């Protein structure tokens, strides 16, 4: 979950592992703050999503001030070989991943939390410390943009 949030946000496996490692290290340091009880697991998951989201956004900001380190697509970021390349769905999903990765910071994280983690706008608002109406607005605009770009680049998909 933690790695995946960072990966879909950063689109960089190595950077995502670094973020995930930082999150788990922080968890280790703060673990005693989570009081035992029936709600502890839920609190932990909420905390992990929150820290992963914020650290991922921070990582993007840090990368903007540093030279790009990409040496082209690393082999482990390549699509899994078992999916046929000519599959329309596969191409669409690849395109969607790329387009979502190009969204601005906050809308991008909103999309990742909504569609990867299946969270409702209220939960997303709590994680990202933003008003619910802002989350809904980001979702609406991002979806509209994605539909338009997909329609343009791939023809009728839906």
């Amino acid at each position, binding site marked *: 979950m933690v790695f995946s949030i960072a990966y879909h946000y950063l689109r960089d496996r190595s950077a995502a592992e670094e973020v995930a490692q930082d999150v788990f290290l922080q968890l280790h340091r703060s673990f005693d703050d989570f009081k035992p009880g029936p709600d502890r697991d839920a609190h932990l998951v909420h905390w992990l999503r929150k820290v992963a989201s914020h650290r991922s956004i921070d990582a993007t900001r840090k990368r903007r001030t*540093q*030279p790009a*380190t990409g*040496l*082209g697509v690393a082999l482990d970021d390549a699509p899994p070989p078992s999916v046929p390349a000519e599959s329309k769905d596969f191409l669409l999903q690849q395109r969607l991943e790329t387009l979502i990765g190009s969204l601005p910071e906050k809308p991008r994280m909103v999309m990742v939390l909504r569609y990867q983690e299946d969270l409702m706008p209220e939960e997303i608002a709590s994680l990202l410390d933003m008003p619910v109406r802002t989350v809904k607005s980001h979702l609406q605009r991002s979806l509209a943009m994605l539909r338009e770009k997909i329609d343009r680049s791939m023809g009728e998909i839906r």
Partner: protein
Amino acid sequence: MKRILPVVLLLGLPLAAQEIKMPPGLDKLAAKASEVVDVNLDGALLQLASKFLSDKDADEAHVKQLVGGLKGIFVKSFEFDEANQYSQADIEEFRAQFRPPAWSRIVSARSKKNGENSEILLKTDNNQISGLVVIVTEPKELTIVNIIGNIRPEDLRDLGGKMGIPKIDVGGAVKQSDKKNNDKKEDEK
């Protein structure tokens, strides 16, 4: 040590990474080389160096984390004015220390055009990397890197562009230097 070594050999176990030996031929190359780099950082020196890496500087903090668990970094690099100053037999003798199952060669790239051979070897214990060796042989240059501990080659590769480490692009050109290099150049003026 003299009594232990034959036992290790009888058991057929590969030598521990820190016992990697430089064949006599390679050890004497410094006398023939025009440029020599010989860095030997054991666990204690690595810890000492780490203490002087700043937590506040993002790059230094990253390097600190990278080298934190390492037990040693050893680099030998020789540059020669003329080609063929070292023997391939010496390289083979050195390479022979890294045998399966403990060691695996994950990259082997050869170029007939410029006579350059590059290898990356990894040692694993219980599915965890415990050693890394890089061997690069060129007609006028020989580089051997031996790192003991858990580190991924891509983590070292991706240091390019940070902390004064050049970033090499696909064509072999050096990309922009980082802030640290620029600051240093300003100080030198």
